[in-house]
């Protein structure tokens, strides 16, 4: 227990940060080079105004036609993404650990709010899973990797709730919590989770092409 804890909170924590940052940088550079080599038109059609217009619509709840057609999915996905970032960054226990390691701290959520946000993430993942196996058009695109990614994303939040409420076996679950968080961070650059960085570019390009070439809305 003590050795595992020391490894998970020490070298493995740094490794996951390094893989996350280094991997993301690598993916950015390699994707940029690939686009330059194979799809030069992307750079010519890229237009900041059209890009931002499209991004703004897709970042606004119900700001795109597809979101209005699928209202439940829209509510779940927006709540999910907001909770996904707010909960881990501002949960009290994490901010205390920041103070311990780096001597900095910032505002914190109340325990109740953090608890609810974490459950929002877990239930959203269950919703996404159900959607992936029940809707034919989504099922058609689903591979086992998508399911594994959903589990990896849900794990830190499910175990976080577990540990916070001190349910049976919570000391071991604390280790699973930390480890699953590190795993989630480390796979971001190499999976579709990388859309957290790529989203402005893919959306921006589609917006540019629709705005500048097709003269049509893309939302």
């Amino acid at each position, binding site marked *: 227990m003590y050795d595992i804890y020391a490894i998970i909170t020490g070298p493995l924590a740094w490794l996951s940060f390094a893989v996350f940052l280094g991997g993301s940088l690598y993916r950015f550079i390699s994707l940029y080079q690939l686009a330059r080599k194979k799809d030069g038109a992307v750079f010519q059609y890229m237009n900041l105004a059209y890009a931002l217009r499209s991004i703004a619509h897709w970042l606004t709840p119900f700001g795109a036609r597809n979101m209005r057609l699928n209202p439940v999915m829209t509510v779940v996905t927006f709540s999910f993404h907001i909770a996904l970032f707010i909960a881990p960054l501002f949960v*009290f226990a994490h901010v205390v650990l920041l*103070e311990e390691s780096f001597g900095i701290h910032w505002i914190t959520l109340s325990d109740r709010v953090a608890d609810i946000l974490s459950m929002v993430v877990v239930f959203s993942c269950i919703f996404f899973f159900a959607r992936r196996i029940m809707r034919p058009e989504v099922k058609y695109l689903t591979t086992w990797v998508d399911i594994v990614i959903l589990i990896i994303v849900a794990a830190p939040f499910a175990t976080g709730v577990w540990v916070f*409420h001190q349910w049976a076996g919570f000391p071991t679950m*604390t280790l699973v919590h930390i480890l699953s968080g590190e795993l989630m961070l480390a796979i971001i650059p190499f999976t579709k989770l990388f859309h957290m960085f790529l989203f402005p570019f893919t959306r921006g390009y589609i917006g540019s092409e629709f705005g500048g070439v097709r003269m049509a809305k893309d939302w």
Partner: protein
Amino acid sequence: MNTTVRQLILLILISAGVLLPSFSFSDDCTNIDEATFTEKRRPFVCFIHDEHNEKAGLEEDCALCHHTYEEGKLVADESSEDMACSECHAKENDPKQFELTATYHQRCRGCHLEKKEGPITCGACHKKAK
């Protein structure tokens, strides 16, 4: 006295008999610096000073925790049992006492990790009332 009142009194006496020992039990916990944390976010840690030090073999080693620093340097042979940790480690106007909390965590968990003995996860010390 009617039966209901007698039964009620009996019930109160039994409850008191059951509850009182559990209240007095908490006297064992050393409530270190409790008043300094004006905004309590976690169940307070029950640190049983004498029992802990006997188990850890620290009876003669008070200065390990009750240390003294002068101009940023540890004074080897001096201890500070008469002072509260918060006198040096607390920050004014911080209801959550982040710095003091970090100091406690580093002191307790750091030692437990080093000795491979004692609790290290959050909930193992900050136990929720059952």
